[in-house]
């Protein structure tokens, strides 16, 4: 508000229009992640003979899907300017729940998915209620709920085990009709649901809340409810992530969710969502998750030791963040001149 530079009377200029599409693309984080993804794919295709075969692609998608779903959920909370660390706990919890209580066949899988979604939603509801209505700090609270979830997980299953049906292990990770990977279908459905939610009053209110809570309240946005819904939906996403992780690993592991904690935020940052709230989206985060997985494959195919994975993931993240800042500067410079 304190920038007098922009007080020039705009009546003198022609109508102020939205930025042209190429400028908007520059300042949109998704563009960067698509570019990184394209580069990685080219390297991957050049270094591994069967890189673009159906089964390898299916493999990559399967490996990425749990992280992509979890990152999609985390994005909803980050957009409200919050942090949800409970993801690690919820993924472990639902992984174990599905492995222990999921039944056989499609109906058993459905039962497992329902349990996972219910558990995720319950944790999300508690997080969201306490953050939104009691004004608790999201990092502290969700750290606590992550620890509680990990504890509950150990009560259900204290060592790797459980019983995962063949339907989950094989059919849910296969290609439908031998062509379309099931993981891709699930990811697309999740993204489509986000597109629909984005076009509700909650979707607009989500961005309003993240940008400026006080102004959003004054404008009539039900800020508390918007936050509560964000945390609940995030929990549902973590639950689905745990469910798909079970299908992929075909086992229940009490600490299966631990790697998700940092990777989720890495995927969100890569996808161009701002941790200051109100900027970004689910698509970038899901692609960010895909990028992190693909990067591992590329390092493997180029013969780099797996010990270097972390270093490369970090470097790519830094590059993405730097490029995003540079692009945003270019974007806003054009704006000031307009």
């Amino acid at each position, binding site marked *: 508000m304190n920038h007098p530079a922009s007080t020039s009377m*705009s009546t003198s200029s022609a109508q102020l229009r*939205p930025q042209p599409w190429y400028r908007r693309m520059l300042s949109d984080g998704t563009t960067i992640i698509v570019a990184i993804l394209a580069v990685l794919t080219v390297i991957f295709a050049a270094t591994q003979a069967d890189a673009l075969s159906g089964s390898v692609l299916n493999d990559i998608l399967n490996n990425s899907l749990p992280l992509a779903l979890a990152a999609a959920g985390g994005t909803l909370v980050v957009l409200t300017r919050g942090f949800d660390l409970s993801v690690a706990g919820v993924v472990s919890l639902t992984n174990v729940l599905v492995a222990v209580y999921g039944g056989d066949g499609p109906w058993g899988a459905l039962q497992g998915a329902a349990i996972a979604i219910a558990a995720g939603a319950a944790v999300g509801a508690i997080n969201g209620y306490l953050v939104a209505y009691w004004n608790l700090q999201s990092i502290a609270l969700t750290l606590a709920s992550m620890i509680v979830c990990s504890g509950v997980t150990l009560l259900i299953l204290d060592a790797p085990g459980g019983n995962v049906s063949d339907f989950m292990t094989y059919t849910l990770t296969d290609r439908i009709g031998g062509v379309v990977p099931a993981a891709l279908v699930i990811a697309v459905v999740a993204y489509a649901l986000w597109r629909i939610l984005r076009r509700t009053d909650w979707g607009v209110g989500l*961005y309003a809340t993240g940008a400026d809570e006080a102004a*959003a309240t004054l*404008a*009539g946005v039900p800020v508390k409810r918007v936050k509560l819904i964000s945390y609940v939906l995030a929990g549902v996403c973590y639950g689905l992530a745990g469910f798909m992780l079970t299908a992929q690993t075909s086992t229940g592991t009490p600490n299966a969710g631990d790697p998700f904690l940092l990777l989720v935020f890495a995927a969100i940052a890569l996808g161009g969502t701002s941790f200051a709230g109100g900027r970004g989206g689910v698509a970038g985060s899901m692609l960010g998750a895909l990028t992190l997985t693909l990067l591992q494959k590329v390092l493997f195919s180029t013969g780099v030791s797996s010990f270097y994975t972390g270093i490369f993931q970090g470097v790519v993240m830094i590059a993405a963040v730097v490029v995003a800042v540079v692009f945003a500067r270019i974007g806003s410079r054009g704006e000031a001149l307009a």
Partner: protein
Amino acid sequence: MADALAPSSAPASSRAGATKILDMSGIAKSYGATVAVRRVSFDIEPGEIHALLGENGAGKSTVVKVLSGIVAPDTGTLTLDGQPYAPATPMAARAAGVSTAFQELSLLPNLSVAENLMLPRQAKGAAGLVSVSQSRERAAAMLAEYGLGHIHPGVQVHALSLADKQRIEIMRAVARKPRLLVLDEPTAALSDPQWLFDILERITAAGTGVLYISHRLSEVRRLCRRGTVLRNGESIETVSLAGVEDAQIFKLMVGSAARDSHAARSSAPKDTAPEALAVTKLAGGTVQDISLRVGKGEIVGVAALEGQGQRDLFRMLAGLTHASAGEIRIDGKPVRLSNPADAAKAGIGFVPEERKTEGIFLGLQTDTNMTLPLLGKLSRFGVIDRTRETAAVLEEAGRVDMASRYLKLRIGALSGGNQQKALIGRVLMSGARHLVLFDPTRGVDVGTKAVIYDVIRQFVAQGGSALVYSTELAELIHLVDRCVVVYRGKVAGVAAGDDLTEPRLVALAAGHGA
């Protein structure tokens, strides 16, 4: 057009008997121990534009918050169109027919103009989903109706100029067709307010009441027939503006006109004192062009209404804001203050505005808070010498009149006054020769204020210099030798000697100096 707005022909006069739009009586609101408004009563008739006048901190913004459903008053009653009115949320206020254009603007920068105008419920298309095209269509129609056709509804609000943002904020409030429209400093960013005046003429002709808050008295006179003056959280008087002069209004805002001006001021003319701290044609942030000089042994005040650039002026002197042009001189030598360490090295002791976030470390002990900047001097081979630390702190605590039992407590547990004493003590201990104090007595009690005044006076008597900003004009008059008044980022005037009176400062601060 504008003539129809002349106070004498305001529609209100012909409808004096009709139900009042708003009747506020005996409203009080406290935040903890701080009284925001004590007793405020006034009423607004149909079609009336009612002015609310008062200094910073007189309680105007609290009245706005009460009317907008942001805070609930502790006591007092409100009626709107004869009905009891007690909004619990901003939405309830809006539903009851009160809409507000806020001073700090309630637009979301990351949403488009159309989305902002539609909040909280966007236009819906097929399947009950938000329709961007319909929202934009409705927003475009609204913008055209209010003469803002040059703004495309798809533009993100952060790309708009401040003036256009303000217009959108006002338009959004007006477009809700309220019974009572509350405008809080609506022309602060508008260089040509005629646009607003035309709208006000239209809606008051339809019987809408308007509460108009502005520090521009000329505007208020043009628009309003009556105005209510607030002072220290109380409504002092509702006056018919046609019958009173500006000077009289300023007097009402300030209180007893002939308050005994300054007690212990040395009468020696200080213009001849060697220059200690000076700025020439300084610009940066919201500061446009400020020149001032503080002599050795002199206390110079800065007075200004909210947001006129005083904040950036002080932050530049503290090395917190970048100066884009002009010169800062200390003891006659030009200096560059690009960070707080530079400022400290140059001998500037800065006491910031936000004590809790910028000044002290709430979790640390009081003595640690005081010695933080000079731990280097108090340590031997990098290890802090506790005996020397204790001695230094005790001496300083004596100077700022702080009981030694507070020193070992966490500073967060102390009262605001004692925190401020510790903070000033720390600045003095650091060996500063020029005090730069931004509202040093904000939220402290009367006794502490007196101590702070004494500390500042002693400090300059020993050869230091001080530049003090305060929101309380009475305090400046009591404390300073000269007072520089800042208005819109520039120096509006300097008051000294017999000229250093509250009405004079208020007039200068409101841009009526010339």
